[in-house]
């Protein structure tokens, strides 16, 4: 838990920038936006990779490895928030606004977003179930093993994703989801830039790029722990010698879903590294 908090504090510089306000710009509007958002996204990505590497090797009981991917995704999201917050806001005397309604759904990649939502729901359900079923290990650490009682035979199987693992994971993932919501709020709400001639510039491509990066970062944030928790849970369920039928069925269901989560992970990683590769989507609706 302490590790999580300390590593989480490393996000403060990025979030500090996000709240500090916009930078000055004297260049074509969309170029400035593209450069600024890309720079901060890559800063978050680099910081996230470093933090993930440090976290992975920190805890011998496996919590570091479990939290590495969510921390990485969290840093990428913070980078997106910082980049979107640095885009110039209107300060001149003559200001313009398009009469349009912008919403997150205009920019988020629809299918991938739904898949990420499904992954989030699956992870939440899985963590709730494994936390409820967890028991203390032989050293008294709560929620670290799965205990079974077959009458003549009693035993435990560990590691199990009980509260020992699920609470810090929920904390980091929850923080990541909050930052993702903030990132979408920022990228939708920031004003359209004005060209030197005074006309409004359509910058939907830049917003879609950021929204794709946010979706990808959430995908990484959720799918890596989901794959790990699925594997550990399936192994724990199948290790019970007197397991009921539904335990076997649940274990195989978890294993069968892993290829789908892996595909989503691959898409998410590609989206984080190169969010500009997406096809065009309809622009926001005019009022």
């Amino acid at each position, binding site marked *: 838990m302490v590790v999580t908090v300390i590593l989480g504090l490393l996000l403060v510089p990025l979030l500090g920038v996000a709240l500090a306000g916009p930078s000055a710009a004297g260049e074509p509007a969309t170029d400035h936006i593209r450069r600024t958002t890309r720079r901060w996204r890559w800063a978050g990505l680099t910081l996230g990779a470093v933090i993930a590497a440090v976290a992975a090797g920190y805890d011998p009981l496996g919590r570091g490895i479990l939290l590495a991917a969510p921390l990485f995704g969290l840093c990428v999201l913070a980078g997106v928030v910082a980049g979107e917050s640095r885009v110039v806001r209107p300060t001149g*005397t003559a200001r313009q*606004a398009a009469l349009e309604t912008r919403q997150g759904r205009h920019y988020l990649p629809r299918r991938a977003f739904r898949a990420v939502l499904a992954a989030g729901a699956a992870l939440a359900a899985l963590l709730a179930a494994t936390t409820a079923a967890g028991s203390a290990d032989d050293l008294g650490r709560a929620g670290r093993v799965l205990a079974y009682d077959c009458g003549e035979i009693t035993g435990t199987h560990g590691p199990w994703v009980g509260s020992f693992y699920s609470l810090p994971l929920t904390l980091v993932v929850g923080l990541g989801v909050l930052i993702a919501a903030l990132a979408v709020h920022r990228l939708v709400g920031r004003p359209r830039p004005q060209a030197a001639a005074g006309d409004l510039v359509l910058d939907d491509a830049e917003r879609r790029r950021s929204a794709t990066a946010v979706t990808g970062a959430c995908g990484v944030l959720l799918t890596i722990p989901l794959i790990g928790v699925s594997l550990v849970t399936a192994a724990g369920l199948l290790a019970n010698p007197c397991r009921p039928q539904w335990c076997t069925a649940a274990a195989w269901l978890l294993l069968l879903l892993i290829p789908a989560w892996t595909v989503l992970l691959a898409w998410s990683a590609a989206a984080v590294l190169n969010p500009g590769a997406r096809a065009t989507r309809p622009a926001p609706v005019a009022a």
Partner: protein
Amino acid sequence: MSEPPTLRVDTQDPTPPYEQLRRQLVELIHSGVLRPGDRLPPLRQLAGDLGLAVGTVARTYRELETAGLVRSRRGGGTHVADQAPAPRADERRQALDRHATAYLRQARLLGADREAALDAVRRAWPADG
């Protein structure tokens, strides 16, 4: 997709920003650019886009609602009213005066005299109007 209409605010204009916005929205509704049921931008979005306080835009929307031109529903946004009342005669005259003043300014910048400016209006006016 056609480009959406644009709202403009000049912070050096002696007319308060909320009134500048109100006039433009009234004209867009009366001219049919904004049709019944069309949604206006959310308060925070429009305020952020124009660098204004949310309260300024809220006052504009409130005045439009009082005039029966828009209807607001909590959580449902602000929409152009289905049966927006027609502009009053004095409002129409004031709007016409504002546009005429703006046209006069442009004509003078182009070096046109009174007759040339009026001729341009006559040429632009449809023969059957």
